[in-house]
């Protein structure tokens, strides 16, 4: 069930000057969260940030009542969220949106770029639980922009592409050699910038592999009330916040 809940800042793990993981804790139980779900976070002490910020959940610990978000500081809101005192209060609305499907006993490829990698730790953890073999493919501009690979390594093989060739194969994710020839994956999951997801979905269609893409449209309410975050689908315009963020890529008319 969706709810509004106050959390306290436990601390930060800065990955570089623009990317961080924020850990929040609550006195009360945390709702069940599925891989791909997101939260609408109210940015504290920031009167010029009017709306909440929709952020994918990175991880949740029901024993410790903690929740983690991986955030890329891109604007005023996400920068201010990275600048809070320990113990300060953060109000979130969650869990929102749908989630990735969990495919049992198969081989899957997870393709992520930028902050789009956030939901993939929880996703991989669930997939491993049902005996699915996971391969990650992470795309970034440069070596310094590749994050969380240690975490991903716990669940499966990690492949990397960088645009400058400083890590992994040089080029865009879709130029990775894994896409050449036959691919023996049963399912592809992708989250990241739209052009990357479109290119991944295109390859998936060509190779007849089901593909799920998690969209990052701008949102206001996050609960399907304002109809601002829509994406065109075969069924018409649909809210990314409630019908998504995860869509079967064949349903998207992008």
């Amino acid at each position: 069930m969706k709810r509004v809940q106050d959390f306290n800042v436990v601390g930060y793990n800065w990955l570089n000057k623009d990317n961080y993981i924020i850990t929040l804790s609550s006195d009360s139980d945390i709702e069940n969260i599925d891989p791909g779900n997101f939260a609408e976070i109210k940015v504290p002490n920031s009167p010029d940030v009017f709306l909440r910020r929709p952020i994918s959940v990175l991880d949740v610990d029901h024993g410790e009542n903690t929740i983690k978000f991986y955030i890329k500081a891109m604007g005023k809101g996400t920068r201010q969220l990275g600048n809070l005192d320990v113990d300060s209060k953060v109000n979130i609305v969650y869990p929102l949106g749908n989630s990735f499907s969990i495919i049992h006993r198969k081989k899957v490829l997870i393709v992520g770029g930028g902050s789009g990698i956030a939901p993939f730790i929880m996703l991989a953890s669930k997939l491993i639980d049902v005996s699915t073999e996971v391969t990650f493919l992470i795309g970034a501009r440069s070596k310094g922009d590749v994050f969380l690979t240690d975490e991903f390594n716990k669940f499966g093989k990690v492949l990397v592409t960088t645009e400058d060739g400083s890590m992994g194969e040089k080029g865009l994710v879709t130029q990775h050699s894994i896409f050449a020839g036959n691919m023996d994956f049963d399912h592809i999951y992708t989250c990241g910038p739209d052009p990357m997801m479109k290119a991944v979905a295109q390859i998936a269609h060509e190779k007849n592999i089901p593909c799920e893409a998690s969209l990052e449209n701008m949102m206001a309410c996050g609960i399907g009330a304002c109809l601002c975050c829509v994406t065109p689908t075969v069924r018409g315009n649909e809210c990314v916040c409630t019908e998504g963020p995860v869509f079967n890529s064949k349903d998207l008319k992008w």
Partner: protein
Amino acid sequence: MVNLNVNIAGLNLKNPVTTASGTFGFGEEFEDFIDLNRLGGIFVKGLTLKNREGNDYPRMAETPSGMLNAVGLQNKGIDYFLNTIYPKIKKWDTEIFPNINGSVVEDYIAVAEKLNDVEGIHGLELNISCPNVKEGGMAFGVSCPSAMAVTRAVREVYDKIIIVKLSPNVTDITEIAKGVESAGADAVSLVNTLLGMAIDAHTRKPVLSTITGGLSGPAIKPVALRMVWQVYNAVKIPIVGIGGIMNATDAIEFMLAGSSAIQVGTANFIDPQISIKIIDGIKEYCSNNGIANVADLTGALIT
């Protein structure tokens, strides 16, 4: 004990707090967060005769103390509402007000006719002020003759309460208010969004797919408050005040300016529980100030 009941053209609301069309879906979206039975009323998402896909994305831009939207009346049409949505939401002990829209007068008439015999729906909001559709919408609300014509046409086919939602994008809102009053409106709600625009200086492009959109939130509150006050002094029919209400104090200000009830809009996006907090806050204000009937606040501005 504070009596929170208010009266809109003969219809009793259990309290003056309702939710604004386009900001509260059909109510169901908020079911996890609040007890919908506590609301004075729900003005549901704008309805048209036929399915509308609305405008292209991007439809939203955050602005200082507010936001622009350009949704463009996306909805599945009046029949879908009546057959699929209304049966699910009529269980709530609150007044449901459909918000109706059209491109031509005949569309408004057709939608109003379908609503006239629906048991449990005691009034509708006639939207002549949507700034985000190419034809119709606001075009009706910015000219007195067309505002009167559409009100008169719907009056002829609709027997229950008609609340006409007014546009702030006019030179003199009192002229339009007086016009729709004489054309048979039972009440007016104001204001709809203010026409605005956002530009991305880096890309040199408009932020919204439609270039212009409707501004809402606290940024428009002083304008809305002024218009409520002007209309209160110009017409005899009740006013439902709207425009950047974020808390109980804002709501009380709108009542003092002349509103009999208020709509909470954009604030629902930031706090899905805000409508209930506003009801509690109004009650507390009345208790603290020795006000026995919240209705006594309407127009009680001391000048």
